[in-house]
């Protein structure tokens, strides 16, 4: 874990651990998240600092609101998520840009170029443009530690949430990092400020103007800040780049000149213009979308950018030469072994029954998504968190008597499956929803959630009773069974519920094999 007991001043930390250390050093008080690769270890590392108030929230919207409100309340706070997790929190995010903060508030988002463990490859840099929020992009764990401190300072100076964007290679890369001590920050007063915190149209119109003016001031800062650094090298070749891509380019062209952007939004137009003019050939190199490229195009300078084929997938040191030479991306056939359900995983039993029945299985995000791959091949849709429940309803609206079921994990059900269940009951949908209850958030490495009855620090708390919750939602039948026990009886139950004109929930409850190993 992030902290060693030895009094070391250098530690070997992942980007996530370094970011957590930096936030702790900056006087952080409250941190909230829902687990999601590659962001999960940020909260796990923060939980090792006993002076912090840290929680797994039920989903990203809740996490965002709790952490943001803590900042409004006057303490430095942080919200962390993966790229698709930020989508869930977009509602509070967009308007929090209007209200601003009180004490510092930092949004950490971890993108997953190459989709090592994600359902899409969205580039979160666009969120900064869309929400009009400043964005910092560390290029390695050391910068993750330093930049989060800068982000808190910026947040308070400009009265705004600040986004820190990481990627898988920064979050899960490790390096030796210089660590420091904690700075204690005093709690600010909570003020009743109707015009600032009550976003009704009359106030929001005024705050929108505040937001636009703030953006102009931030743009001026972008020109001056050391976060946007020029490294003078040869005049014949210069690169404008950011994030881990900087490291790849620096490795391949150590003698070139660099404009290394640590603050990627708002853009530092004058610095970019001056740099582009100072070198004979200027190349913009960035991972995923043409975020920098599209903007630099508007500045009227000559530069080259990557072939559009490189918008797919993650970059690496091998990509840089071909990009600089203007070549297209060659897709290498992957021979890597796909992941699969672990031997002895309780999901095997449920999937074997569903496969035998030949039903369409609507699923979503979790270990059970692996049920879609051979040899089970028994899950037929995966879009986003909680969709196992809502897909069952939607598909049944197209095929009312279709052989359709929905599956959702225990953690995912609490995250966003329960709203779908309430909707299905309210709108008189039928069918069978399986809650694959393995007593943990398994895919991200086994995190607690409300139905485990344990907090992020394994402290006992009131356990959410999933069966009682489903009954309260109005499901006609709620059965709690161990699918690995009597398989014949389980199969008979599923067939009976499937044949009934009712909305049933079957909680297939058996703990994940990996939980004990963790303890």
């Amino acid at each position, binding site marked *: 874990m992030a902290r060693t007991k030895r009094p070391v001043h250098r530690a070997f930390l992942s980007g996530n651990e370094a970011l957590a250390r930096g936030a702790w050093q900056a006087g952080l008080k409250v941190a909230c998240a829902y687990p999601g690769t590659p962001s999960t270890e940020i909260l796990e590392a923060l939980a090792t600092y006993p002076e912090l108030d840290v929680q797994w929230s039920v989903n990203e919207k809740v996490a965002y609101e709790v952490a943001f409100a803590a900042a409004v309340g006057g303490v430095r706070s942080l919200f962390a998520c993966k790229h698709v997790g930020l989508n869930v929190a977009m509602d509070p995010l967009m308007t929090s840009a209007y209200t601003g903060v009180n004490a510092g508030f930092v949004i950490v988002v971890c993108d997953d170029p190459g989709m090592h463990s994600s359902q899409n490859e969205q580039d979160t840099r666009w969120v900064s443009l869309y929400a009009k929020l400043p964005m910092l992009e560390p290029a390695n764990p050391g910068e993750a530690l330093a930049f989060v401190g800068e982000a808190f300072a910026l947040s308070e100076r400009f009265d705004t949430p600040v986004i820190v964007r990481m990627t898988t290679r920064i979050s899960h890369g490790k*390096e030796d990092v210089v660590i420091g001590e904690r700075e204690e920050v005093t709690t600010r007063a909570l003020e009743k400020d109707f015009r600032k915190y009550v976003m009704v149209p009359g106030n929001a119109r005024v705050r929108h103007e505040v937001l636009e003016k703030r953006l102009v001031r931030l743009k001026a800062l972008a020109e001056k800040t050391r976060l946007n650094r020029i490294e003078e090298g040869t005049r014949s070749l210069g690169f404008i780049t950011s994030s881990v891509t900087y490291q790849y380019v620096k490795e391949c062209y150590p003698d070139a000149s660099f404009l290394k952007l640590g603050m990627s939004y708002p853009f530092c137009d004058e610095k970019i213009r001056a740099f582009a003019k100072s070198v004979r050939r200027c190349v913009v190199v960035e991972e995923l979308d043409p975020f920098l490229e599209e903007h630099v195009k508007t500045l009227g300078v000559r530069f080259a950018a990557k072939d559009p084929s490189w918008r797919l997938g993650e970059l690496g040191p091998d990509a840089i030469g071909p990009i600089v030479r203007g070549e297209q991306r060659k897709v290498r056939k992957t021979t890597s072994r796909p992941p699969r359900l672990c031997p002895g995983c309780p999901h095997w039993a449920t999937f074997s029954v569903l496969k035998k029945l030949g039903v369409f299985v609507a699923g979503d995000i979790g270990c059970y998504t692996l049920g879609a791959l051979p040899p089970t091949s028994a899950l037929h849709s995966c879009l986003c968190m909680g969709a196992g429940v809502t897909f069952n309803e939607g598909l049944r609206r197209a095929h009312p008597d279709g052989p359709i079921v929905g599956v959702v994990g225990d953690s995912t059900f609490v995250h966003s499956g329960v709203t779908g269940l309430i909707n299905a009951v309210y709108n008189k949908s039928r069918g069978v929803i399986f809650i694959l209850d393995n007593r943990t958030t398994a895919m991200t490495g086994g995190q607690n959630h409300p139905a485990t009855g344990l907090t992020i620090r394994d402290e006992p708390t009131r356990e959410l009773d999933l069966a009682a919750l489903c009954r309260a939602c109005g499901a006609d039948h709620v059965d709690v069974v161990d699918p690995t026990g009597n398989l014949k009886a389980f199969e008979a139950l599923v067939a009976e519920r499937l044949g009934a004109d009712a909305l049933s929930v079957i909680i297939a409850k058996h703990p994940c094999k990996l939980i004990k190993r963790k303890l």
Partner: protein
Amino acid sequence: MNIETCNVVLGGIGGQGILKASEICGWAALYEGYHVKKSEVHGMAQRGGSVESHLRFGQRVFSPLVNRGGADFLLCFHEEEHPRLKPYLRKGGRDLLRYLDAARKLVAQEPRALNTAMVGVLSRELSIGEAAWEKALETVFPPKLLPFNRGVFFEARAMER
């Protein structure tokens, strides 16, 4: 100190302890005074899929990933993963696959320690002193598991070449 950057690729399948192996090597390089970078992927890949970890250390390291054809050492934990990982090895780089069977035999009683045995094999090849390896093992293993793993490490380190 060796100025040239040393590049190691470790790989196998989820559950073999590859990330732990590269963690030990990373700490050892750090204790030896190098600048270290290590890169790997958590999450879905660890559910029995392919796992690889890249480790680079030297005076100053930029990229956390090793180039194809850039690895000085390849430490492969599974024969079936070898063809996929082989292209990382540079010309003249050392492929330590030939020690995999011997390492397996060494930990036949406790197969989960294969990672420690393979690190012992690799340790002989790197410019990292024994004291740094000792400290790295102490850092990574909890006290209860340390004596056994230290034993495995040094037995593998002394293995016939």
